[in-house]
């Protein structure tokens, strides 16, 4: 292994939201930063659902509102319970601009450009083979037969975290801790999107669906409106999918696209891209593994930092903010005299004090709730049966409670119902 002729204060692995946020924050503070990315451009290996919350990114990146690639501000939220050929939806419409849609590919590129502007060095097409560990301390990265050295490495390599595994720092990700997201990006015109979803220019829709949209696999489906396309896809819990999958997973996405109540939206579109990615699904509050070591910090998906509430996902902003906190930890460790494990442990404290860990702790039981199979079949059926009785009884309309009793019968017992309700109230 040959040492290259350049040395850095910090090497960040992966130019996704976490890596770029960390590199940007440190470059701005005058650290000599190297950000390496295996894709041909930053973002070419990144996939997300479709929505990002803006404020955590504003905290990290100066001038966010001036130039970030925002497609549409999500002003409309729709949550639907689907069974058979019926769905009951809940919709919230406002004019507030809190989260937006975009392509993560674009957003990652934008972030990496900020890193360069801040004085960081960004290298693409570089796949790190290994974290170099010497005397129990991470001293740099190995790429092919070359080594690049640094005081500290921030690992933001993403959910597959091969480098951490190879360094013996974490075990292989367990099935129950991962979800599989598969999506189609479907091209539509701006006007078509605005007409189809009742939006004005710059307004967007985030639509989460539960029930018979994942073919009985625990998980959910999503639709986000981009500038001139929609992202349509599903996330299934991998541990359950392994047991329950009955046909090729692309068929589940196609069934979603061709669902009798959804097909109308995509009729005039064409698929622009098909993508897939794993999603962290940890059961908190236990951290999946330590996020710091001598000369090392871990951020973003590699650290498993994503909040999945079932009705909302927070991944990109959590990743970026964790990268930002990792950078803060490096700054503090630098002030304390070096990148020792002890000094870097401040990272966990920063995470604990931030919204990230507070939220993950608060919603620690959310993933357990999502394992409950009734959420995907029974409840959508009951709800849609009630609505059906209320609106499609030509002569005698039942009272709501009456309709509910009928809908419930044979589907779910009172005890389970109460237990699930309490569980839901407690967890989300």
């Amino acid at each position, binding site marked *: 292994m040959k040492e290259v002729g350049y040395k850095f204060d910090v090497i960040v692995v992966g130019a996704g939201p976490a890596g770029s946020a960390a590199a940007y924050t440190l470059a701005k503070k005058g650290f000599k930063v190297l950000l390496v990315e295996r894709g041909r451009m930053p973002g070419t290996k990144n996939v997300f659902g479709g929505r990002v919350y803006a404020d955590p990114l504003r905290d990290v990146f100066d001038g966010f509102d001036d130039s970030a690639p925002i497609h549409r501000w999500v002003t409309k939220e729709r949550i639907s319970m689907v069974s058979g050929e019926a769905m009951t939806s809940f919709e919230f419409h406002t004019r507030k601009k809190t989260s937006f849609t975009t392509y993560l*590919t674009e957003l990652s590129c934008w972030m990496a450009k900020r890193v360069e502007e801040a004085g960081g060095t960004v290298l693409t097409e570089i796949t790190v083979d290994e974290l170099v560990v010497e005397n129990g301390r991470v001293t740099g990265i190995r790429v092919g037969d070359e080594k690049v050295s640094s005081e500290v490495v921030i690992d933001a390599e993403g959910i597959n975290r091969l480098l951490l595994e190879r360094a013996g720092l974490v075990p292989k990700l367990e099935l129950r801790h991962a979800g599989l997201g598969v999506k189609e990006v479907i091209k539509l015109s701006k006007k078509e999107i605005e007409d189809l979803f009742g939006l004005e220019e710059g307004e967007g829709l985030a639509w989460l669906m539960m029930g018979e949209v994942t073919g009985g696999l625990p998980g959910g489906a999503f639709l986000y409106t981009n500038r001139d396309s929609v992202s349509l896809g599903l996330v299934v819990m991998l541990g359950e999918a392994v047991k329950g999958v009955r046909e090729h997973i692309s068929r589940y996405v196609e069934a979603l696209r061709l669902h009798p109540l959804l097909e109308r939206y995509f009729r005039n579109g064409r698929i622009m891209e098909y993508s897939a990615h794993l999603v962290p699904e940890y059961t908190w509050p236990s951290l999946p593994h330590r996020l710091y070591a001598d000369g090392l910090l871990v951020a973003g998906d590699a650290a498993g930092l994503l909040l999945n509430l079932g009705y909302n996902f927070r991944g990109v902003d959590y990743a970026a903010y964790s990268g930002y906190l990792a950078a803060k930890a490096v700054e503090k460790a630098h002030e304390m005299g070096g990148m020792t494990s002890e000094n870097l442990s401040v990272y966990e404290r920063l995470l604990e004090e931030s919204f990230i860990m507070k939220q993950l702790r608060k919603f620690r039981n959310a993933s357990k709730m999502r394992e409950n199979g009734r959420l995907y079949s029974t409840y959508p059926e009951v709800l849609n049966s009630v609505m059906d009785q209320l609106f499609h009884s030509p002569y005698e309309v039942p009272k709501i409670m009456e309709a509910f009793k009928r809908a419930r019968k044979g589907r779910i017992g009172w005890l389970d119902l109460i237990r699930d309700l309490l569980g839901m109230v407690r967890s989300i």
Partner: protein
Amino acid sequence: MMRKPMRVDDILNNDVWDVDYEPHIRVDATKCRECDEKPCLLLCPAQCYTLVGNEVLFSYEGCLECGTCRLICPHDAVHWDYPVSGRGIHFRFS
């Protein structure tokens, strides 16, 4: 737009790769022969794993680099690496 389900090959036609001349994933076929579950056949989103006769045929070219196969393989038959030199899938709208 197609009103019936598209084959995954046709869906994948919309993606862009710069395919490497060496695979970034290697599969131990002897382990596949012993495997009853073969979850890779249905869960690899790019259908890189197909059944030909009784053999699992693996091709890396259309890989989306999600890492699912590595996690779900019950026999640890998948040696999975990140592609090098900027090769592999090139997402543009995801």
